[in-house]
């Protein structure tokens, strides 16, 4: 038998459109929540330094709302509320998040 290292297909090819077309809602939710988490770090610093800049505050609210609503979704999944409904949960929390974001935008702008 050849002694070469086993070759595996593993990483998704991020430059290929088919990779993104095949990305499921569950994966989008996971990705969005992690990206929001990363965004929260500089946005919180911005919040402390420029409390009067409305745009910075709104971006922070956006990151908090996304991260929080998707976090609630993860909580529900961990408690077992996901038999057939994880996409439904995603839809519901996204909708509530957008409502909250809209209200926050009204208040700020």
């Amino acid at each position, binding site marked *: 038998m050849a002694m070469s290292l086993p070759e595996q297909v*593993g990483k998704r090819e991020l430059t290929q459109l088919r990779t993104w077309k095949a990305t499921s809602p569950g994966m989008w939710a996971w990705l969005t929540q992690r990206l929001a988490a990363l965004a929260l770090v500089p946005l919180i610093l911005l919040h402390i330094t420029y409390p009067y800049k409305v745009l910075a505050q709104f971006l922070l609210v956006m990151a908090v709302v996304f991260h929080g609503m998707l976090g609630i979704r993860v909580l529900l999944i961990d408690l077992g509320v996901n038999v057939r409904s994880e996409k439904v949960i995603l839809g519901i929390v996204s909708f509530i998040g957008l409502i909250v974001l809209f209200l926050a935008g009204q208040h700020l702008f």
Partner: protein
Amino acid sequence: MTKVTLKIRRSSPSEGRAAEYVEYVVPVQPKMTVLDAIAWAQRNVSHNLAYRYACRVGMCGTCAVVINGREGWACRTLVERLHAPVVTIEPLRNLPVIKDLVVDMQPFFATMMGAMGYFVADGAGCSTGGEPVIRMRDRTSIDPHIQCISCGACYSACTMVHWDPQYLGPAALNRAATLVMDSRDGARHARLDVLDSEHGCWRCHTQFSCTEVCPMQLNPTESIGYLKRQLVVRNVGALARAIVRAPEPEAALPAGPAAALEPPAPPPAMVADGGRRRVLEYGIAGVLSAIATSVAATAAAFLRGPSTAAGRPWISLGPVERFPLHAPAEAIVDVSGHADREASRRLRRVYVVRSTATEALVLSSECSHLGCGVHWDAGIGQFVCPCHGGTFDLQGRVTAGPPPRPLAAYRARVERGALLVQET
């Protein structure tokens, strides 16, 4: 459509041929599946194209491949339903490629053993010569997850398997979950021990890729969630028992005849080290308790409200006669109650308005709008704020401008001729 272009990832590691995407233009028949198309390409164009199939009717799972970026069975995917003129076909991910679309399934099957995905009879569940009784309650929870035929699609789709090659993966964990749910199983604690590791069910981050692609429409994420909850209950229970030094619940009943069939020991790397695990568990429990305590204390303080005024000391402003009747007089007094601060940060400017010989109103000079210092303008008989033009009357009520509230009044009383103000 009359033709479809297959773009097949071809490679032959044993012959040293690197991976490349080869195109085949295949004529389309009605109801043609991807498997039909691959077979046409192999028979008519490239005789050495390697691919797998067995039943070709969607029962065995042998033909699992990645079609246009998504795992599926080639025999169950209709070409016309893909709505794509170019169909890219790649072998399953996370497994060594033998040739073209054929992968080595051995590591996948090994995860089944690694997760103890096999039934171990509980000696007492079998009566002498009889069968272990199946409970309907167990059956209801097991049935939605038992149909797995180990095709490997979920294992290929799971990104965590890519990042952690030792991760047991959705199929193995799903199978283990069906056994944990089975009350006839005799290896519950050993199995949970194996799953309770970073390469076990804790590696799952609920991305749902497995559930998305499972051709049997199973939900491994749900099974793994079930396992996580079982482990939490078990570990917290053990911790609680350790704290109150309660005895362990009775271990599995003495082995019956089935014990003669020794199951293979789980790989040693899977079982977390006892001492390290205890440190981790106590540490985590400690940190969680600290967080819970601080949150509870904060909530309690919030609900209780700011400290009541009853106990605070009264500060004398001197004889009340010093202050004229009906005309506000300024005074500087330390009513802040923060004895540790510098004097300049403690002193407050107040206005004393005497209405009668024994009654006085002590108003704060801080404008209720944005905190500027107001001054009494005797000409118009109002307190005036220079910042935005707010005015207050003799009682501190707002008469003009942006201030939203009256001037704050300190609690004051006259006792034995002296004017006393309560610390805030």
